[in-house]
């Protein structure tokens, strides 16, 4: 399956991955091969097979509605790039 430079750039943008000038060309080949590999699955006839929604258990286990904190705010903020008054601080994002 052929993958265009435009598709590579779009996927990179959606995934917030920066690619170098000229890299897209090389990636069209690599991604194309991966797509070919995945396309093999398309050869299976699944017309009589129910879509699979999970592979571990058939039904979702549930939790009770009990509010419980096992960690502190400091635990949560420990990985923050920056923090202020209990908030995560990130580069300005305004819509």
């Amino acid at each position, binding site marked *: 399956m052929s993958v265009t430079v435009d598709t590579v750039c779009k996927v990179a943008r959606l995934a917030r991955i920066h690619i170098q000038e000229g890299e897209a060309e090389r990636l069209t080949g690599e991604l194309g091969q991966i797509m070919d590999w995945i396309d093999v699955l398309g050869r299976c006839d699944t017309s009589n097979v129910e879509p699979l929604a999970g592979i571990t258990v058939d039904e979702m286990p549930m939790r009770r509605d009990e509010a419980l904190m096992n960690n502190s705010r400091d635990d*949560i903020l420990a990985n923050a790039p920056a923090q202020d008054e209990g908030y995560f601080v990130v580069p300005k994002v305004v819509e």
Partner: protein
Amino acid sequence: MSQETTIIEGDTGIFEIVVGLEVHAQVLSQAKLFSSAPTAFGAAPNSQVTLVDAALPGMLPVINEVCVAQAVRTGLGINAEINLWSRFDRKNYFYPDLPQGYQISQLYHPIVGEGSVEIELEDGSSKTIRVERIHLEQDAGKSIHDLDPRSSHVDLNRSGIALMEIVSFPDMRSPHEAGAYLSKLRSILRYLGTCDGNMDQGSMRADVNVSVRRPGEGLGTRCEIKNVNSVRFVQQAIAHEARRQVEIIESGGSIKQETRLFDPDTGETRAMRSKEDAHDYRYFPDPDLPPLVVTQEQVDAIRATMPELPDQKKKRFVEELGLTDYDASVLCADRANASFFEEVAKFAPAKLAANWITGDLFGALNKAELSIAESPISATQLGQMIGLIDDGKISGKIAKQVFEIMWQEGGVPADIVEERGLAQVSDTGAIEAVIDQLIATSPENVAAYKSGKTKIIGWFVGQVMKETGGKANPGIVNQLLKAKLDQL
């Protein structure tokens, strides 16, 4: 079914408005949808965030059974089909208040299917607005952009709280209908106890889809106005957006499908900065979550605990308690009002109770900017007071005094009447004495009455009431006066 279409008169003819709403309602629960973090409003930033909500590596979501039950309950409340098998999908996008990098939602297999909500139109008729689906999903955190010029602050307390997204069909044709639908939906959610409906706290917000078309034509291209947080703003946003679209079409342009924001300060909508691929969410089934299965027995058990909903309650108030349509609507719109009324009506006739609540009580609460829950006068007090009127112990006029005293100082109505000597005088002897005195001192008016000007009896009644400080029973006064004057 009646139609109520707001027509926009353009220069080239008329247009009609088509509206559909996506309402996000925060599920009332103790803990979040997939974690045990508490959901209380107004907590210190990032104090209600577990490792799951912060999406730390290796954390897995486990669904909260009450959130599932609340969605089912809401579905039953709008007569919707409940899907016993549903599934969660990942909606992928990047934003700092979404630590997972995706929102867990239900695009393909929502837990609730088609239902409907009845709304009342301005002419008193009703219309059915169809609901397409309700699905469960996670809320995002909150970004604050004005604390610092160069950075944004992020609070993840809301991240992972359960939302129900309630999606209507494009069945509304005017700002009024959209407002009525949103109000009705909020009322139903509050009756059900599945969402507190507090739009000012963000626990209910609407994305509004608006398009216009020439009557009879297919649907036009729509614009989506995001995150509108009051009924009034929804109506303003629709009115403005529809006019904007008509102007574009009439000047030869075409509508571009886009996401817009409503600015409450100007009453206008404006385009959000949009990238061409902003909406490429790359949905796929969430591999962390097996299918969500509820049993018919569970659904039936929830159905067995359904409260009386606003439409049923209103019907009962009108048919069994004899209230007017209007009073019943006003009382039933809010569950707290309806409960207050039912409490009052335990002590007093329903119609009288309704009059006092929608009149004097609502008036006083409005003026003092209090909610019914904050009323200084309890339902028991008001009920007992109205009971005194009904028993003939006090007049309606005196009752207003008692009302004022209870509002200011509290107290038991019967005691207030007793202590302040406000009881209505039904003692015919005492009233007769006043009447005799009056007849003796007003020969001219007596003569006028005798000459056939019987309407002057109103003057006599007024004088007796004045003389007795408003405490004489007006019925008895009338009766005695008539008897005495006719005997002369």
